[in-house]
């Protein structure tokens, strides 16, 4: 087990280096002088030169990259051009909001997705099955920002049950969590369904039935344990995906999270902030995949062998 985890960790290192390289070079070849962007008024040439020197902007790109990497490893992601505050503190300040939203979205996805998947598998091709699978298809076919607007229009504008936007109380989480978790719920439902259907074909299920067990204990005691294995792995990947995927949900519902920082940074052309936010979210996703792999190996000993 230890060797597996260690090997898996080592494999992530080149990927991590690769993403820092891509993010850094994509964002640092942007035309336009960042100093000119920072200073609103007309400034003299030597002030610009001094600030450029202070920010080490005249160094070769490769030197700047290694400086960026070294600083990032020490938790320093630079300073925002527009807000004049350290990027790390801005991100860490916003992250709890993203985290809360993602956790609620994930909970919604599991609480709805797993029972829906079980019911769909047990009553294959029934009305609930078709309904659930239809909803799951809708979840992946709608642009997230559009379903968010539909929810706002329906539950906030028309019915007045929930606040339109903001993030200052439990009732503010409901709509964004559902919007964000919808497609994940669909994925989980489809996966639970297909996985359970496959497990139900096994001999030990036939044995359980043959010894006279009712259908419910067969499903819940015998089948589900094995059927949920792949589902649990996907759940771990999804939490990371939800953290990074909250970009759009956060913008529509005005939630001050990391995703909205990234979107605002684009609009303000605030490069270090964008760079930090994108790096942060991508590393989260990689960590999520890592956890999922380890979790899977932990739950299913067959994996370690191969």
């Amino acid at each position, binding site marked *: 087990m230890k060797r597996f985890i260690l090997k898996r960790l080592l494999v992530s290192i080149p990927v991590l280096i690769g993403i820092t390289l*891509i*993010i850094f070079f994509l*964002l640092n070849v942007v035309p336009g002088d960042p100093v000119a962007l920072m200073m609103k008024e007309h400034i003299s040439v030597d002030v610009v030169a001094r600030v450029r020197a202070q920010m080490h902007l005249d160094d070769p790109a490769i030197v700047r990259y290694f400086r960026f990497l070294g600083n990032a490893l020490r938790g320093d992601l630079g300073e925002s051009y527009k807000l004049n505050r350290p990027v790390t503190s801005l991100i860490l300040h916003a992250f709890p909001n993203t985290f809360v939203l993602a956790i609620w979205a994930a909970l919604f996805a599991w609480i709805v997705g797993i029972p829906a998947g079980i019911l769909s598998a047990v009553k294959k091709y029934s009305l609930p099955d078709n309904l659930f699978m239809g909803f799951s*298809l809708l979840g992946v*076919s709608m*642009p997230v920002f559009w379903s968010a607007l539909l929810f706002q*229009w329906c539950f906030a504008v028309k019915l007045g049950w929930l606040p339109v936007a903001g993030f200052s109380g439990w009732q503010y989480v409901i709509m964004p969590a559902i919007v964000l978790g919808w497609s994940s719920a669909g994925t989980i439902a489809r996966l639970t369904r297909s996985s359970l259907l496959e497990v139900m074909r096994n001999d030990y299920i036939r044995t359980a039935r043959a010894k006279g067990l009712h259908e419910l204990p067969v499903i819940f005691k015998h089948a589900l344990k094995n059927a949920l294995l792949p589902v649990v792995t996907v759940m771990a990947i999804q939490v990371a995906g939800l953290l990074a995927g909250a*970009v759009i949900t956060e913008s529509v519902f005005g939630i001050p999270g990391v995703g909205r920082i*990234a979107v605002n940074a*684009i609009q303000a052309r605030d490069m270090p902030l964008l760079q930090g936010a994108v790096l942060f979210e991508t590393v989260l996703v990689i960590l999520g995949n890592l956890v999922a792999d380890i979790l899977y190996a932990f739950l299913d000993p067959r994996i370690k062998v191969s």
Partner: protein
Amino acid sequence: MKELNEKDTNMETGKTPLLEEEDIVAPPSSFWKDLMTAYRRNHLASLGAVIVVALFLMAVFAPWISHYDPYMIDLDVMTEAPSKLHWLGTDQFGRDLLTRILYGTRISLVIGIVPTLLSMTVGTALGLIGGYYGGKVDMVIMRLCDIMLAFPSILLAMVVMYTLGATLLNIFIALAIVGWAGTARVVRSQVLSLKEKEFVEAARAVGVRNRMIMVRHILPNCLPALIVLFTLGIPGAILSEATLSFLGVGAQPPTPSWGLIITSGKEFLFSAPWIAISPGLFILVTVLAFNFMGDGLRDALDPYMKQ
């Protein structure tokens, strides 16, 4: 069995056989014929194809379907509810929404198809090379794929658009950069199994050059997988464009992009909800139609992909 015996006896006795040879042998079938027969059996897939054809017709004949100008501002009819004159209502500048959505079909279809083709061309080439040659080349390409696939795709697309600037053309590039790795992986795995086949060995034995083997012998056999990837890639690209436009790094006003129309309707959710709602329905139907088509093609092509 009985019939065959009967026929044998007939032939032995020298009488004319009951069945001519060509009646027994199945009519020669082609790849495309098989595909069509299997595809037509799937009702959802057929519905998807009908909708896609309708969308293409809408895109081509937009000026004939609506006599309004998608860009003409008419301040007399700002944010009017759907009516006989304006079937889907008007937006905040008095432009006819149906017309804008019709013209938006052109953008969405082009955005769906061009970047997907681009990313698939790059992905196929790299997957072919990596899978065929193996070794260090393969390793480098696959590690690059790992890195690209580690990015949350919308974030990477956002960063590319930030760097290149928000124009429609740059969306092609951004989506192609984001999308090639998935294709490369699929093609590579296909090549790995194909290159062990006898026909590749035969080609090599008679001295066909590597490049020829890849293009003439292996690539055509990847076609079924590529057709499915292409069809299922289109809805993804359409959704990405809408999202990028919504975030302000995609199409710019006054382009009648579906995503952009929804964005502009965001501020009028209270007074004129139809601005945001109707283009979303078109996106939804388009994405569903392509997904149905892709799923149908995958099922129909299944025997070809299990090599």
